[in-house]
């Protein structure tokens, strides 16, 4: 019999909440006065943005723990959080483009928020590429953790850029500036995407630990520079 996993329950709860939140956002919440139904993408766009920031912050904390302790579990959750951050960042950009086309009349603008978000996604995707090139598991863990820590310098820039520079993208809203009928689906979807992200990170961390164990049993052939030099001096 398959063992019950807590993260699967959290993920399923997230999916159920996403259905409820999306139903409320699409059918119960009022249409925005100026943008009309196009604005309803906000019910997934804003929660995706919040959670992308959250998982990348978690990746930063896990990276510090990984460098500090050298324990594989921190590397595994850091990898999961980084991958979740990249996926959510890519979704964020796609959702923003779908919204921008009918609202701004263009798919893309070199606005500071859009540009910094795109750079953040490319930066973290680059860290995942680095992982795929390093075959020694301890070295891979340390190097990617170091890159995640430095890369986090760009994350506050994404959040605060709309306040620091003039931007086409609006600044952060507060509950005082949003109708209560809109806040409920927004909050439900925020928790829904958070739970799905936790599920994703936990699944990915488990896979990463399994991969590490498999490498310890049967290490892949090392093809880095040092070995190449030692083999062919």
């Amino acid at each position: 019999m398959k063992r019950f996993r807590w993260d699967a329950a959290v993920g399923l709860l997230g999916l159920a909440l996403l259905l409820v939140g999306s139903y409320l956002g699409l059918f119960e919440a009022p249409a925005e006065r100026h943008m009309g139904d196009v604005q309803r993408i906000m019910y997934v766009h804003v929660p995706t943005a919040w959670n992308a920031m959250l998982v990348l912050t978690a990746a930063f904390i896990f990276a510090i723990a990984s460098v500090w302790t050298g324990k594989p579990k921190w590397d595994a959750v850091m990898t999961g959080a980084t991958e979740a951050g990249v996926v959510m960042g890519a979704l964020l950009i796609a959702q923003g483009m779908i919204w921008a086309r009918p609202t701004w009349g263009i798919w893309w603008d070199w606005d500071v928020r859009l540009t910094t978000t795109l750079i953040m996604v490319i930066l973290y995707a680059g860290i995942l590429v680095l992982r795929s090139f390093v075959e020694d598991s301890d070295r891979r863990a340390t190097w990617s953790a170091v890159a995640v820590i430095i890369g986090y310098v760009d994350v506050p820039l994404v959040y605060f850029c709309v306040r620091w520079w003039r931007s086409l993208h609006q600044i952060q809203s507060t509950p005082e500036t949003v109708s209560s009928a809109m806040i409920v689906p927004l909050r439900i979807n925020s928790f829904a995407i958070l739970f799905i992200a936790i599920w994703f990170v936990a699944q990915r961390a488990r896979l990463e630990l399994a991969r590490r164990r498999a490498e310890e049993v049967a290490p892949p052939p090392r093809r880095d520079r040092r070995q190449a030099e030692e083999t062919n001096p």
Partner: protein
Amino acid sequence: MSAFGQIATLVRKDLLLEWRGRARTLSVVLFGIITLLLFSFATGPDTLALRQGAAGFLVLALLLSSTLALSEGFRVEHENHALEGLLLAPVVPGALFYGKAISNTLFLILLAPILTPVAVVLYAVEVGPGAFFGTIGLWALAAAGLSAPGTLFAAMTSRVRSQDVLLPVLLFPLVVPVLFASVKAIALTLSGDPMGQLASWTQLLVGFDVIYWVLCGVLFRFVVEEGV
């Protein structure tokens, strides 16, 4: 030997190596000039467009040249296991980082007095002595902002396959704030600053320099300790 003494010795060693084997310096300078030429080909013979884009082209030439210089700087340390020798000397990892980062910064700063006049001529930019030296100063700040994370990433990527691809993939997105601030500041220096924005862009550039130099200096120890 104190940490400062170690840094000074390492900088001296790197500069001496550069001086004795001038082929790398020459190739990086030529690469920078070719890059400036290519930007003018891509923009076309529109003098106004070239002049407006001059600051951006200069900083991009610095960025592209830096990847050549940075990866080569660590490649030589892996030949004959020189890096292990340095760490066993013993050199403190922090001193090794700052020694390498300072010599990389100095090397990139040396490109400025060569590439800036080339850009001035190619892009028909009118500059006085003040703007010229201001550009060199901002170039130095940009070079420092590239060198710190560049040195750290080069220490990693010089030991893996496809190092030439990996270094730009990691470095370029990270240093975008440095590039953005330096392009804006150099453009304001070259074309005038009627709104008084130069100071804020320069402060942003200095801010990122400080963050990268401190953070990379702290983290370098983990990179070299993990299987030199």
